[in-house]
């Protein structure tokens, strides 16, 4: 793992680090799977942003129950992907559902990363008691099957968007902490860290400005993979009836609501399945491409 850490001179500012991150994305064009992945993710991001403009119908409106794909709506328009059991246009629900998934999944990931990075920095930079306590806590959480953890938490505290984010943060932060800790252990003895210490910078400054930007490579790859898992997790919770509350479109929930009708109206279930799989595939391919590119450096 340590060989992927950037060994170049330190980035003086966060802004500069950001530009470098963009540059490493630019390298992606050398990897075909990476480009395909980026394309898929970008596609869904654009769909989510433009949802109100491109969705042909209101995703919540009952129009015409159980229409097959391609059916013309009497009041104009076409149900390109058909409608569900309540007569809501599936294409519009998938389009608006991308907003839901691209809101909750990254948000949960960001929370998990914030907590995981802080824990990892503290453990890896300070070592000693910080390290022992934080490492033990994450070992304990990590030794527990993740989905089991989600189910127990959600079934106990109830299901809502916030609770899903809490559960994902709680269960993912230890894994992130472990990666960050490893990276920090490698970086903490670098010259530029020593230099900053000599300058008398605070520990917080050194951790966030000197160390963190240089650990971004592996973290970005991990974040892409993790986003895929988080999307799966939200889907699984929806599938088990522990997901986001209806009627707002949510891909996992759409599959759960219509899967019983899959044998007569396969369109109701298959299209959300394709949507969720394609987005996860996008993140997985992106992660793969980024890893490939960073190894090539």
């Amino acid at each position, binding site marked *: 793992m340590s060989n992927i850490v950037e060994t170049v001179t330190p980035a003086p500012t966060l802004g500069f680090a950001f530009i470098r991150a963009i540059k490493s994305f630019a390298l992606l064009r050398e990897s075909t799977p990476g480009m395909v992945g980026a394309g898929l993710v970008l596609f869904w991001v654009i769909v989510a942003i433009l949802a109100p403009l491109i969705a042909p119908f209101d995703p919540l409106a*009952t129009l015409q129950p159980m229409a097959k794909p391609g059916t013309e709506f009497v009041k104009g328009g076409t149900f390109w992907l058909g409608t569900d*059991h*309540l007569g809501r246009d599936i294409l519009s629900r998938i389009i608006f559902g991308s907003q839901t998934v691209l809101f909750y999944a990254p948000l949960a990931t960001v929370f998990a990363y914030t907590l995981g990075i802080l824990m990892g920095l503290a453990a890896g930079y300070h070592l000693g008691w910080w390290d022992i306590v934080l490492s033990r806590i994450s070992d304990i959480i990590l030794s527990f099957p993740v989905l089991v953890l989600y189910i127990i938490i959600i079934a106990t505290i109830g299901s809502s968007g916030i609770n899903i984010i809490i559960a994902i943060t709680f269960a993912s932060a230890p894994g992130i902490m472990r990666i960050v800790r490893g990276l920090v252990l490698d970086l903490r003895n670098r010259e530029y860290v020593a230099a900053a210490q000599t300058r008398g910078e605070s520990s917080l400054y050194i951790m966030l400005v000197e160390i963190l930007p240089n650990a971004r490579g592996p973290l970005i790859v991990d974040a892409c993979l993790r986003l895929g898992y988080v999307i799966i997790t939200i889907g699984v919770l929806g599938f088990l009836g522990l997901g986001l509350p209806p009627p707002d479109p949510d891909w996992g929930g759409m599959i759960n609501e219509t899967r019983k009708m899959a044998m*007569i109206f396969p369109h109701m279930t298959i299209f959300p399945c394709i949507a969720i799989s394609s987005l996860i595939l996008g993140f997985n391919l992106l992660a793969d491409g980024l890893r490939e590119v960073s190894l090539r450096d």
Partner: protein
Amino acid sequence: MTKTKMDHEKQGRVHPRVADLKNQFVKGQLDRREFLRTTTLLGLSAAAAYTFADTFDVELPSLISSAEAATPKKGGILRCGMQVQDMSDPAVYDWVEKSNVTRQMCEYLTITGPDNVTRPMLAEKWVPSDDLKTWTFHIRKGVMFGNGDELTADDVVVNIKRWLDPNVGSSMVGMLNTMLDEVDGKDKDGKAIKVKRMIEGSVEKVDDHTVRIHLKSPDLSIPEKMYHYPAAILHRSFAEKGANITKTPDLGTGPYTLTEYRVGEIAILKRRGGGFKYWGDDPLLDEIHYIDTGQDAAAGLAALASGQVDAIYTLDLTLLGAAQNMPGVTVHEVTTAQTGCMRIQGERAPYNDIRVRQAMQLAADNEQMLKTAHQGRGQVAENHHVCACQPDYAPLPKIARNVGKAKQLLADAGHGGGLNITCNVGNTNGQWETDQVVVLKQNLAEAGINLNVNVMPAAQYWDVWDKADFSLTVWTHRPLGTMLLGVAYRTGVPWNEAKYSSKEFDDLLTQAESTVDIDKRHKIMAKVEKRLQDDAIMIQPYFRSVMNATSDKVKGIGVHPTNYHQWNKVWIDS
């Protein structure tokens, strides 16, 4: 059997109302079903009632289609996909699935068929007094329990007393309200409150095979209440032996015994052996297996499709289309008084303002909920929980949906700027429950009410079902409207989830329960329904049809409005 019943009829006393009813029927004031129902309740045997009615109406209600009228074959195993729930004491059952397993081992004093007509079972006859306050049940002779004891009046008395014992906690308390009195008692903190206790001497053993019950006020539906699912007749030693039917299956009079039982997995019932002689016609099936196919309805249908089970307990609406397209599978459907009632507790804000509740009712589009959430399978209802398929239903003037008026009422109540409320739903019966609330959400949005849909796991829903302000609870079918109103809306009864309390309603209901005259009863029922409707304590949009599906080789099976499994005549054509 028909012959002996007719003989009883000749010898026995016929309730004076029977003659009036016959008259009304002949004059056409009474429809055929109502005539059959009421006369059988009054003790005229079903056979006799049918004979009379058929003089005017040759069409006999047949539960078995002519195609299936082939000679029944004895033997074979019927495997039914149904949740195998945790069960012990039938008196406290809260779920029909439990009673279906028990129904094969234990029997009831009466039996109500799919046509809502109640017939004799363990009681071969019942005679009400003219004022309908005293009911005499003649217990059938020669009925044996699985342990070899004969059924006597003692067993019946012990059972009735147990149902009404507050320590048992049976829902029969609400059913047999007219056998209870309010006395001074103490709650758990020692505070003095009124508690309901059985009136001393209200159940009486006349002789070894006669039991008499005395009521405070008249009640016409006693025979039907005796077939309410917690009212299984058990051996007198049932409580002493641990009150667990799965451990003591020999304490029932039914033709089957439980040989294997694992919660969540399987319940196997086999014909009783050891020289047991069933009092009635021997059932045709050798064994009945209830196989738990999980909470997932699709898994049940998949099991039927692949031949792992021969019947499923109920066909989820979402699977109707699939089941209809399956070769070798028959779908059975029946109109019922089952419903998803979205009741409102009028105690807490914002619901304590009746204008808010009225606005909700006016904004709700009951027809659309039926059409969209339940694929139109059922009957539109009028927010008072009495179904047109129930004989005591009285039609009320239609109230049209009126969003403008709803908005006005909300503005008057100080919610002109919008109102935010939450409805709990547990999908305890199916996806249609959430769908119904989702349609309601759209309806209410038009009036400026934002409804949050709180979907919870079925198991968790039962923690809040009687506590939440606003939630959707599934109610099962009952053959009479008054029976349901008695357990669900009478002041202080345990299942009164709306916490509804109206002296006027209680009195009217008691009056309806004691009125035999059809015209008079309908007039009272109209008032009862109006009271509930006006108090706006529920959005009860429609009554739903229930369906089940079986393999074509299962014969003589249908669907009972309450999903009761009356399978003594069911057979397998292999």
